[in-house]
């Protein structure tokens, strides 16, 4: 299909062939094993309840990254573009939902029940839809006119769109961290000495439901089939009667629904957001998408979960100042040892 894809495949087949391939795989195993042993010693030091605590945070954190990573991977899968503005759509989702919370009659530390839960659902739905429309507009304005241009052109407009959105968020709520109203109940329960909050459970369950819904949609629905076909061969899809423009727009829309949900969940969970959240969280989520195998939605879900867990475990057991370094070290290791990611393409293209 694309030149990057081909280069990656050529590289992979070169890696897989013969002793070099096995040596490199061995290298990856050694690095992972060393990390796990180091982690295990720390885990033993701190005891099981601390581990359970960190694990809960890690899964919630990973769930949010998975939702963002899905948007990167879906867009890359269909038009081979890294939508740098995607992280900013996520940040926009956090900002917008924060503003919607009072509109829907929710507020700081009010008692939580059925009615607030429904209101919160309303916040989710509106935020997701607005993010969807925003992302479709971005595609229409910045990417579609450049569909037949050299690959670098839309990449540059993607970076431009990202800066534009960041600027808009900066003008909206200023340069510093913005408090996000704490509307989820803070109650929790004790599990083997670890405090499991309602918050974590809500975040984990919501992320899981959305990922499963997306997977079912892409596997089963007519539009999902059109999306998969378009990702695999655009001309053939046209010949089958698929409206490519509509399908690509739908992909941006669905990716942004998840980013909007992710932004809302981020705010609800961490109770803070900032105008350049999309840059930092977006880069991590993009790393997650590459980690899982860019273009593969299951890969993005798993990659997001793993990157979130690596982040939380490093924060919990090691020096948090080094967390970003560790995450990008993971990206580099993946690119060196397994350029197609954990669940990279396993089938020849043509």
């Amino acid at each position, binding site marked *: 299909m694309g030149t990057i894809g081909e280069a990656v495949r050529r590289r992979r087949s070169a890696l897989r062939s013969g002793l070099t391939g096995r040596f490199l795989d061995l290298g990856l195993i050694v690095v992972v094993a060393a990390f796990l042993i180091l982690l295990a010693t720390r885990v033993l030091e701190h005891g099981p309840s601390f581990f359970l605590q960190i694990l809960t945070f890690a899964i919630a954190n990973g769930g949010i990254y998975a939702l963002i990573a899905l948007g990167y991977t879906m867009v890359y899968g269909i038009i081979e573009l890294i939508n740098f503005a995607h992280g900013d759509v996520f940040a926009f989702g956090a900002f917008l939902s924060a503003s919607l919370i009072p509109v829907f009659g929710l507020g700081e530390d009010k008692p939580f029940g059925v009615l607030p839960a429904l209101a919160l659902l309303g916040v989710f739905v509106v935020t997701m839809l607005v993010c969807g429309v925003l992302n479709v507009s971005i595609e229409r304005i910045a990417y579609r006119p450049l569909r037949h241009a050299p690959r670098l052109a839309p990449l540059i407009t993607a970076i431009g769109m990202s800066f534009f959105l960041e600027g808009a968020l900066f003008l909206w709520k200023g340069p510093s961290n913005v408090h996000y109203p704490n509307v989820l109940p803070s109650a929790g329960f004790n599990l083997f000495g670890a405090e499991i909050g309602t918050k974590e459970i809500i975040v984990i369950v919501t992320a899981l439901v959305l990922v499963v819904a997306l997977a079912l949609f892409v596997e089963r629905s*007519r539009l999902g089939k059109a999306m998969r076909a378009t990702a*695999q061969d655009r001309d053939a899809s046209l*010949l*089958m*009667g698929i409206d490519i423009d509509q399908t690509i727009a739908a992909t941006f829309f669905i990716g942004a629904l998840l980013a909007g949900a992710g932004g809302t969940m981020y705010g609800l969970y961490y109770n803070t957001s900032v105008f350049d959240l999309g840059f930092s969280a977006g880069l991590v989520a993009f790393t997650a998408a590459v980690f899982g195998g860019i273009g593969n939605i299951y890969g993005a879900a798993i990659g997001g979960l793993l990157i979130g867990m690596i982040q939380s475990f490093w924060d919990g057991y090691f020096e948090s100042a080094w967390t970003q370094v560790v995450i990008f070290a993971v990206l580099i290791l993946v690119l060196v040892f397994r350029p197609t990611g954990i669940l990279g393409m396993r*089938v*020849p293209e043509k």
Partner: protein
Amino acid sequence: MALLEVSKIDVFYGRVQAIRGLSISVGAGEIVALIGSNGAGKTTTLRTISGLMHPAGGKISFDGRDLTQTKAHEIVRIGICQSPEGRRLFPRMIVLDNLLMGTYARKERSGIQSDLARVYELFPRLKERTKQLAGTLSGGEQQMLAIGRALMAHPKLLMLDEPSLGLAPILVETIFRVCTEINAQGTPILLVEQNASKALEIAHRAYVLETGSIVQTGTGKELLSSPDVQRAYLGM
């Protein structure tokens, strides 16, 4: 009036003209072959009829409708489907899903099961491999799948671009036999081929394309015995 009428079209790639004033027609029930060497414009002609490219001049009409500027994804709905050059399957979908992608544009869903049965009957190999990923099929099987996928659209006109390219001789026989079977069941076929002798054998009529223009036309038999065609395309 013929089912498909292509009249005096000009097609460009950027500033390079690939097709010059080309006119062809396909009537109901016919097999029409378009032969010519590499770069003559055969594939471009099919891509233009399918709406993947649009002519700068001239007119394409099908079943009395003007298709000249119709978009590719709408052309399937009007009844033209092609098995493209290079097969262009969906490599990471299984055989069955590839076939079902062919039905994407169909409004009536009722005939799908019987069409599927028909494709499996024409190509028993596909039935054996129904759960296999298309990207892992052999070249011949991929060609069968590409033709089967186009048939699943239940087209009023089937276009085949180089169906015998790169296949073992025995498979070439199979593919051409199936073409006549499909035609005998009532579907007209526009066939693009480099294998001129085979194409002319099964074609009712044929056109010879050179550097973007039709240079000769006649029935399959006439062209088979034409000295010019024999020298240029049949190696005699």
